[in-house]
């Protein structure tokens, strides 16, 4: 057993921490909420130069040959600094899905560009029903000559209007989906945002996240847009969601730690009744509870990331981690507000940046209800 980051990862974390503090402080995070792109191209270039974008790709695709834990080391720091960027969608979601399931041609075409910071990707799978499960999938790609015609609408798509490619899940079987027994019915398409018939409408969220609704109206999809095999895309979606849930958990653990530290610092400085309020036991016990929740977030998230690094997607440890981090991180933010009093409720104080984002992170790649259902099925052997 080894529960620590290795030396490389520690170095990665410390350089990430200083790079993000310098290039993308929390003041910039707030400013980016009003920015048209929602991210800073300069920060993105720095990430590419630092080798972060290709960190987990093999060297032959312009990467550094790292694994998911190396990536997790970065994600924890980005979660800590709330870095607004299409990193998660492009690398953790899109890039790793292409690496795991793409053809040689797709990998050779897309991965080096991602590594160089020249290409963005994102997952477009949720629909109006807001449920990841395949029975709620209504987008359809009908065969048309050698290709397909794609129709449907995807909701809550991260980074929808900066992305170059959407990973789109759609029904491709006439007899209805049966993605388990017969591996039938759902395919994943790599759809360029520039393709005719693609229309992106921004959602307006309270978190500053860039979610969008994407409509596919008679989009002509060629066969080589398919990721993996025709009709066998559901496994790709599920594995992508697993990577997303594990990565998001680590990101949330990073944010949780930052909120704990921010609160601790505030309580030591804030004086009432002639002494720092940190001396009051009522607040000390709030902080002890937050520290336990942070510890839980870290342990669970690291274990999930380790599972992914081991190639053990489909592990219930991943759902457990996301379910725990969803609830624990929100508890941590709630207690942090209680400890900060009125100050934490102001727009100018950094705490609220975390609290608002925690709510969107909670929804991404499965909220607690979704993962509870997944785990419940695993528990009763369904």
């Amino acid at each position: 057993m080894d529960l620590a980051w290795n030396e490389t990862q520690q170095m990665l974390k410390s350089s990430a921490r200083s790079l993000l503090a310098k290039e993308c402080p929390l003041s910039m995070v707030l400013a980016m909420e009003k920015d048209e792109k929602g991210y800073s191209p300069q920060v993105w270039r720095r990430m590419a130069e630092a080798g972060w974008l290709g960190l987990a790709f093999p060297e032959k695709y312009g990467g550094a040959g790292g694994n998911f834990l190396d990536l997790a080391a970065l994600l924890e720091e980005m979660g800590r600094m709330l870095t607004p960027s299409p990193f998660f969608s492009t690398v953790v979601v899109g890039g790793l899905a292409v690496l795991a399931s793409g053809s040689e041609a797709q990998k050779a075409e897309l991965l080096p560009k991602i590594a160089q910071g020249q290409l963005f990707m994102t997952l477009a799978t949720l629909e109006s029903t807001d449920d990841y499960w395949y029975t709620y999938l209504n987008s359809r790609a009908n065969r048309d000559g050698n290709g397909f015609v794609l129709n449907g609408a995807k909701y809550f798509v991260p980074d929808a209007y900066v992305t170059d490619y959407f990973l789109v899940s759609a029904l491709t079987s006439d007899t209805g989906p049966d993605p388990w027994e017969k591996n039938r019915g759902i395919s994943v398409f790599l759809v360029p945002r520039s393709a005719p018939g693609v229309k992106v409408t921004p959602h307006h969220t309270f978190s500053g996240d860039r979610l969008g609704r994407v409509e596919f109206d008679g989009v002509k999809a060629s066969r080589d847009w398919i990721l993996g095999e025709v009709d066998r895309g559901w496994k790709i979606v599920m594995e992508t969601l697993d990577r997303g849930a594990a990565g998001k958990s680590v990101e949330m653990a990073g944010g949780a730690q930052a909120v704990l530290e921010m609160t601790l610092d505030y309580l030591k400085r804030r004086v009432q009744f002639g002494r720092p309020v940190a001396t009051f036991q009522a607040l000390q016990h709030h902080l002890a509870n937050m520290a336990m929740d942070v510890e839980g977030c870290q342990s669970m998230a690291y274990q999930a990331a380790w599972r992914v690094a081991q190639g053990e997607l489909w592990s219930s440890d991943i759902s457990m981690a996301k379910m725990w981090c969803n609830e624990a991180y929100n508890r941590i933010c709630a207690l942090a507000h209680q400890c900060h009093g009125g100050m934490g409720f102001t727009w100018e104080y950094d705490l609220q940046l975390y609290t608002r984002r925690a709510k969107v992170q909670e929804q991404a790649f499965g909220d607690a209800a979704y993962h509870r259902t997944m785990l419940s099925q695993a528990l009763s052997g369904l």
Partner: protein
Amino acid sequence: MDFRFSPAEEAFREELLEFLARELPPDLRGVGRATESGDWELTLSMRRKLAQRGWLTMHWPKEYGGMGASPMLSLILNEEMSYHRAPGRDVFGARMLGPTLMIYGTREQKERFLPPVARGEVQWCQGYSEPEAGSDLASLRTRAEDKGDYFLVNGSKIWTSLAHRADWMMLMARTDPDAPKHRGISFLLLDMKSRGVEVRPIISMAGEHEFNQVFFDNVEVPKENLVGEKGRGWYVAVTLLDFERSGIDYAASAKRILDDINQYMDDVHGDHGTDIPRADEGWARDLMVERYVETEVARLMAYKVTWLQSQGQVPTKEASMSKVFGSENLQKCAAAGLKILGHYGVLTDEDKWVPLRGIIEKAWRYSISGTIAAGTSEIQRNIIASRGLGMPRG
């Protein structure tokens, strides 16, 4: 990062599981508490068998009759013993007294007291809490007057687990009433057969005789039974508290409760004849998943404590977190069990219709003491805040 145990550790777990499958009676009724005394014969025979294999004191250095086993192996032992509700472990002798004597004991004390513990032949108990000294332990008032070649002990200890089974007691007593409260305490080894020792049972709300109150009326303790320096007993005892557990017992006991309830939910499913509909409802499954997730957190917290120890670190904050979190989760798991069992959950093992041999209700009753014994949740939270997070004392 690697969450796996080593092949050698896994091999030990396998060997231990085979041992438990062979040695544990199928109708085991205890809940596996390390201080359980219900079936004392079984406890003693299991203890001897653990000792024969060297497992009872496996974490001790070889020179003292141990196996020099890593903290990780100890963790596995505790995890499986708790999960299987196996009696026989020796918290006081093997986990507390032994390591303390190795640090503070004289050569004579080590030679005299350690081997019987390693052989599983002696029961120790812990004379710390007093009626007026609970969380504020350092205010204890039991006196030990220096009479030249012996100490004369008068006073009383309470919540003394297994005192009625014990041969010896680790006693914290005040030798200097004028010194500041932490500085006037000495750590003595007291023979429970001494004249003037009286043990009175306290029956817990679990209906079991586990605790006692112990009275000392002019009890003589020879000078050679002083451990460490006179007046430094608080520091000897504090060292010893650091040897207390990782919290894995809480996580493993909780996991077992959940696995039992999950099996029960399957057994009473309509497909299997005995249809108890409440056990198949969504709320029950949701409750179970939530408990499983939190139990996994508790398990990882305990692993973290042990892993830090194996790295030569002193995980003070982590141990307190694991204790609070683990004991509170165990309460929630036992309560969830009762909720799902409904009326069947309140039946005792005297009732013909009791499910799961009545162990869940017993575990629930015991769980209430979990957030109090070995440092209340409130004291642990104080430790997390002050020693862990550096928050100033008021």
